[in-house]
C-alpha cells in the first residue's frame, strides 16, 4: 500500500477518504487484536515489523489520534478486567480486623503479591506496546502534546487499578501496607519484597495535579500519621515501663529500625520525615521525664559513671532541638550542687575547728584546704572523664561545666588561699613520696582550678606568702619545681603576674653569692671573727609579701648583734644607698643544749634562741616568769606566746611550764628542762603557726588586697586616659574592667571612686560641656 510500490516516476493521487477509513478500521482491528494478544502473553505469534508498519501507516494517514485513543481504550478495558478478575478477589478479608483474624497479615501479604504480579505484567506489556507504537510516540504524541504511550499506560494503571473508582483497591493497598509495617514494628517477619514492589509501583506512578509521585500524595502522609500515633502511644508506654538506660536503648533501636525500613523498602525522601517523628515522639516529648527519672536518670548515671548510657543520651538527645540544652543545664546544676556540698563540708570543718586554727593547730587548717582542693579536683576529674568518654568533648558542654565550677569555686571566698595552700603542700619537701611527674600533673590540674578563680590578685598575695616561707625556711622541694609552677602561672596570667615571684627567687640566689663573698671577706679581714656562723638572706622589700620596712622589736644577744653589724658594714660597703632592716621574726638558729642525759643540737627560730639563751645565766631550777621573758626579750606578744608554746607545750618540751597547760598565760613560770631526752641528736623545734589564716589575719590580707586594687584601678585609669586623652564615663569603665578582669573583677562603684580621687588629685577633669566625659590632664 505504500506509494513506493508504484512504478517509478508515477505518483498516485491521495486515497479517497472512504477507502482510507476502511483501511484504518482494518489496520486498527489487527493492532487492537495484537495488543490483546500481548496482554494474554501471546506475543510470540506476532510480528514486530508488521505491527510497527501498521501503526506507522495509521499515523502517516493522520489517524494518530484515533490510534492513540483506541490504544487507551484497549488498555483501560484490559486493566478493568484485571481489577475484577485478579485484584478484587485478592482483597484481604477485612482491613480493620485482619490483624486479629490473620495474625501474620497473610491475607495482606497475598494481596500485595497479586498486585506485584499485576504490576509486573502491566509494565512488561507496556514495554512491548511502546515498541510497536514507537512511531506514534515520536510523531503523533509529540505534536499532539499527549503523554508517551508508556506513560499513558502508567496513568491508566493509576486510575484504573491503584485509584480505581469502582473498587476500594486504594484503601486496601494503603491499609495492607501500613498493617505490614506495623507488624514489622511488632517484630513479626514480613515479606519485604512484596511491600517493596508495591512501594516501587507507587513511586513510579505520578499524581496528575501535583506532579508528585503517588507514593508521596497517597501513601507517605498516611504512613507518617500512623507512625506518629504509633510512637506517641509507644513513648508513653515506654517511659512508664522502663528506666532511662533501657528507654534510650529502645529509642535507639527504633531509630535504627526506621532507618533500615526506609532503606529497604521506602523512599529515601521519607527518611528525614520519619526520623523527625520518632525523635519528636520518643525524644523531644520525654526529654525531661527521662533526664529526671529518679533512680536511673541523668544524675544517677553521672553518680554511677555510666559512660555508655551517658554517651547514648548525648547522641540521642543531640538529635532534637532542646536536648543538649536540657542535659547541659541538668549536669551544670548537679555540679553546682556537688560543689556547694564540698564548700559546705569545708566551712563546717573550719568553723568547728575555728578555735584551734587560730590558736595554732596548724595541721587541720592546711588539711581542710588540701582536702577542699582535692575534692574539687576529683570532681573536675570526674566531669573531665564524662566529657571525654560520653560527650565527645563537646565544647558547649565544657563551657557550661566550667561556668558551674567557676560559680561554686568563687562561692568559697577562701578558694584563692586554699589553692595556694594546696600548691604549697605539693611543693614542700619530703611529702608523700610523690615523683616529680606526679607533682607536675597535680599542679597542672590545679592550674585549671586557678583559671576559675575570679580574684587572681588574692591568690597572688597568698602564693607570695607561701612561696616566701618555702624559700626562707628552705622547704622547697626543688627550684625546678618552683620555677615550673611559676612558668605555669606566667602562661596563665602573663609576666606581670610573676615578676615579683621571680624577684624572690633572684634574692635567694644573690644572697647565696653574697654569703660566699662575706666569708672570703671575713677570712681576709683583720677584724675579730664573729663567734658564730652568720647566714644572711637579703630580701628586696618590694618583692616579698611581708612588711620589711621596719625591724620588729627584739633584744638580740650581743654576739649576734655584733655579727650583724659586721655583715651590715660589709654589705653597705658594696651597695651604697641601701638600707638593711633585720627581720628577727623570720630567722632560724642552730644551738647546742646540754641536758642531763646528753647534748642535743637544736634547730630553733631566732626568737626561741633568744628565749633559750636567757636560761644560760640561770641556776638549775631557777625559773623565769612570762613577764620577765617578755620584758627582757622585747619580743612582740603574739610571737612570744607562739614561741613559748613551741618550746613548752609541743612535742619537744625544752622548757617546763608552771602551771601545765596548752595555753600561755601571763604569770606562767618557765624552767629549763634538764631531764629532757630524745632519741635523735639533732632536733628541730617546729614553730606553732596557723597555716590557714586566722580571721584577723584574713581581714588584714583582705584590706591589703583592697588597697592594692585601688592602686591597680587608678593605674589602669591613668594608662587608658593618657592614651585616649578624653573618654566617656561608661566607655572608660568598660575599658578598665577589660584590663583588670584577668586579675580581679573590679566593681563599677570602685572604679567611680577612683576616678573621683584622680579628679581631686588633678589627673583628670570633667569636660566642661558634658559632665559624663573626662579629660586627661598631663
Amino acid at each position, binding site marked *: 500500500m505504500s506509494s513506493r510500490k508504484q512504478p517509478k516516476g508515477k505518483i498516485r493521487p491521495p486515497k479517497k477518504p472512504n477507502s482510507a477509513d476502511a483501511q484504518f478500521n482494518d489496520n486498527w482491528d489487527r493492532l487492537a487484536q495484537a495488543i490483546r494478544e500481548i496482554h494474554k502473553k501471546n506475543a510470540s505469534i506476532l510480528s*514486530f515489523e508488521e505491527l510497527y508498519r501498521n501503526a506507522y501507516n495509521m499515523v502517516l494517514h493522520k489517524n494518530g489520534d484515533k490510534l492513540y485513543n483506541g490504544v487507551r481504550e484497549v488498555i483501560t478495558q484490559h486493566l478493568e478486567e484485571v481489577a475484577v478478575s485478579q485484584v478484587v478477589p485478592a482483597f484481604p478479608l477485612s482491613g480493620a480486623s485482619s490483624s486479629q483474624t490473620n495474625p501474620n497479615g497473610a491475607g495482606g501479604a497475598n494481596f500485595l503479591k497479586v498486585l506485584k504480579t499485576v504490576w509486573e505484567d502491566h509494565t512488561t506489556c507496556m514495554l512491548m506496546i511502546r515498541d510497536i507504537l514507537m512511531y506514534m510516540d515520536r510523531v503523533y504524541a509529540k505534536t499532539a502534546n499527549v503523554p508517551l504511550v508508556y506513560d499513558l499506560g502508567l496513568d491508566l494503571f493509576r486510575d484504573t487499578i491503584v485509584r480505581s473508582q469502582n473498587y476500594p483497591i486504594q484503601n486496601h493497598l494503603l491499609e495492607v501496607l501500613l498493617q505490614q509495617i506495623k507488624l514489622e514494628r511488632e517484630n513479626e517477619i514480613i515479606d519485604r519484597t512484596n511491600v517493596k514492589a508495591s512501594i516501587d509501583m507507587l513511586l513510579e506512578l505520578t499524581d496528575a495535579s501535583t506532579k508528585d509521585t503517588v507514593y508521596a500524595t497517597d501513601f507517605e502522609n498516611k504512613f507518617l500519621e500512623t507512625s506518629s500515633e504509633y510512637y506517641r502511644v509507644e513513648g508513653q508506654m515506654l517511659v512508664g515501663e522502663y528506666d532511662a538506660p533501657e528507654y534510650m536503648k529502645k529509642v535507639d533501636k527504633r531509630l535504627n529500625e526506621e532507618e533500615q525500613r526506609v532503606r529497604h523498602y521506602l523512599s529515601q525522601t521519607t527518611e528525614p520525615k520519619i526520623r523527625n517523628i520518632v525523635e519528636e515522639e520518643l525524644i523531644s516529648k520525654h526529654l525531661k521525664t527521662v533526664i529526671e527519672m529518679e533512680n536511673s536518670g541523668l544524675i544517677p548515671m553521672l553518680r554511677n559513671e555510666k559512660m555508655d548510657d551517658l554517651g547514648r543520651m548525648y547522641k540521642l538527645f543531640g538529635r532534637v532541638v532542646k536536648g543538649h540544652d536540657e542535659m547541659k543545664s541538668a549536669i551544670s546544676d548537679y555540679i553546682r550542687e556537688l560543689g556547694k556540698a564540698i564548700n559546705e563540708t569545708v566551712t563546717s570543718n573550719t568553723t568547728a575547728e575555728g578555735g584551734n586554727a587560730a590558736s595554732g593547730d596548724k595541721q587541720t587548717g592546711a588539711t581542710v584546704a588540701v582536702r577542699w582542693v582535692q575534692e574539687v579536683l576529683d570532681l573536675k576529674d570526674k566531669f573531665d572523664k564524662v566529657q571525654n568518654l560520653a560527650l565527645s568533648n563537646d565544647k558547649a558542654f565544657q563551657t557550661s561545666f566550667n561556668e558551674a565550677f567557676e560559680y561554686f569555686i568563687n562561692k568559697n571566698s577562701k578558694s584563692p588561699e586554699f589553692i595556694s595552700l594546696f600548691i604549697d603542700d605539693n611543693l614542700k619537701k619530703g611529702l608523700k613520696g610523690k615523683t616529680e611527674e606526679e607533682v607536675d600533673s597535680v599542679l597542672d590540674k590545679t592550674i585549671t582550678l586557678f583559671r576559675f578563680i575570679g580574684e587572681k590578685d588574692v591568690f597572688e598575695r597568698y602564693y607570695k606568702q607561701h612561696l616566701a616561707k618555702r624559700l626562707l625556711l628552705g622547704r622547697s622541694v626543688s627550684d625546678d619545681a618552683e620555677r615550673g609552677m611559676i612558668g605555669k602561672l606566667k602562661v596563665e596570667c602573663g609576666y606581670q603576674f610573676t615578676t615579683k615571684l621571680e624577684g624572690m627567687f633572684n634574692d635567694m640566689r644573690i644572697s647565696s653569692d653574697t654569703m660566699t663573698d662575706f666569708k672570703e671577706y671575713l677570712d681576709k679581714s683583720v677584724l675579730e671573727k664573729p663567734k658564730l656562723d652568720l647566714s644572711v638572706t637579703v630580701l628586696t622589700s618590694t618583692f616579698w609579701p611581708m612588711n620589711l620596712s621596719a625591724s620588729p622589736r627584739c633584744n638580740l644577744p650581743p654576739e649576734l648583734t655584733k655579727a650583724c653589724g659586721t655583715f651590715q658594714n660589709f654589705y653597705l660597703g658594696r651597695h651604697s644607698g641601701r638600707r638593711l632592716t633585720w627581720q628577727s621574726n623570720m630567722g632560724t638558729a642552730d644551738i647546742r643544749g646540754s641536758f642531763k642525759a646528753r647534748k642535743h643540737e637544736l634547730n630553733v627560730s631566732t626568737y626561741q634562741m633568744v628565749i633559750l639563751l636567757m636560761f644560760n645565766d640561770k641556776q638549775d631550777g631557777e625559773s623565769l616568769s612570762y613577764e620577765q621573758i617578755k620584758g627582757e626579750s622585747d619580743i612582740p606578744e603574739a610571737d612570744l606566746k607562739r614561741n613559748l608554746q613551741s618550746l613548752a607545750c609541743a612535742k619537744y618540751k625544752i622548757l617546763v611550764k608552771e602551771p601545765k597547760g596548752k595555753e600561755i598565760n601571763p604569770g606562767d613560770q618557765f624552767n629549763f628542762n634538764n631531764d629532757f631526752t630524745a632519741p635523735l641528736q639533732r632536733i628541730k623545734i617546729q614553730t606553732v603557726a596557723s597555716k590557714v589564716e586566722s580571721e584577723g589575719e584574713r581581714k588584714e590580707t583582705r584590706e591589703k588586697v583592697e588597697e592594692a586594687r585601688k592602686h591597680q584601678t587608678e593605674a589602669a585609669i591613668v594608662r587608658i586616659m593618657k592614651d585616649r586623652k578624653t573618654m566617656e564615663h561608661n566607655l572608660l569603665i568598660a575599658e578598665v574592667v577589660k584590663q583588670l578582669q584577668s586579675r580581679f573583677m573590679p566593681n563599677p562603684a570602685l572604679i567611680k571612686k577612683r576616678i573621683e580621687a584622680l579628679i581631686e588629685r588633678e589627673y583628670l577633669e570633667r569636660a566642661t560641656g558634658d559632665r559624663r566625659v573626662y579629660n586627661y590632664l598631663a
Partner: protein
Amino acid sequence: MTSMKLFDRLSEDLGQLLEKEENYDMVIHVGGEENKKEFKAHSLILSTRSSYFKSALNNHWTIKQHDGKIIFKKPNISPKVFQFILKYLYTGVINFHEQELREIFDLLIAADELILDELKDQIQEYLIEHEYTQIQQNIVQVLHIVFGHDVTIFKKL
C-alpha cells in the same frame, strides 16, 4: 596527550564487517516479491545504532530460525535502499552519487519510518542543496510522496 578521533579507520573496518558477513547473527529479508534480497547482519550493531532495531531485536519480538539466526522481514523497502541504510548504520557514510531523485525520496521515506533522524536530516539537506530545481518543477509529486511523513523539507524549501 590530547584525544584523537580516528573515525575513518573505524568506519572502514565496520564496513568490512558488513561486507564479509563475519559472525553474523541475523538474516534480513528485504523487498517485495519481484525485487528481494537477503542481507546478513549483526543484531548488536543494528540495535546499537537505531532505536527501531533496538525494539525489533529485543527478547519480546525476535524470531529465530533453526540455526539460531534471527530472522527479520522488511518487505516495504527496496534492497537498494536498504543496502544504503545498512551501510550508513555500519559505517556512518552516506554516498549520494548515481542516485535518482526518486530513489532519494524512497530513502527519505524509509529513514522516516525507521526513525533514523540523522540520515533523514542529511537527505533533506542534500535535496535542498542539489536537487532544488527538480523539486520545484515537480512540487506536486513531491508533495504526494512525502504526504503524512514526519519530514520538514517543505519548511526548509
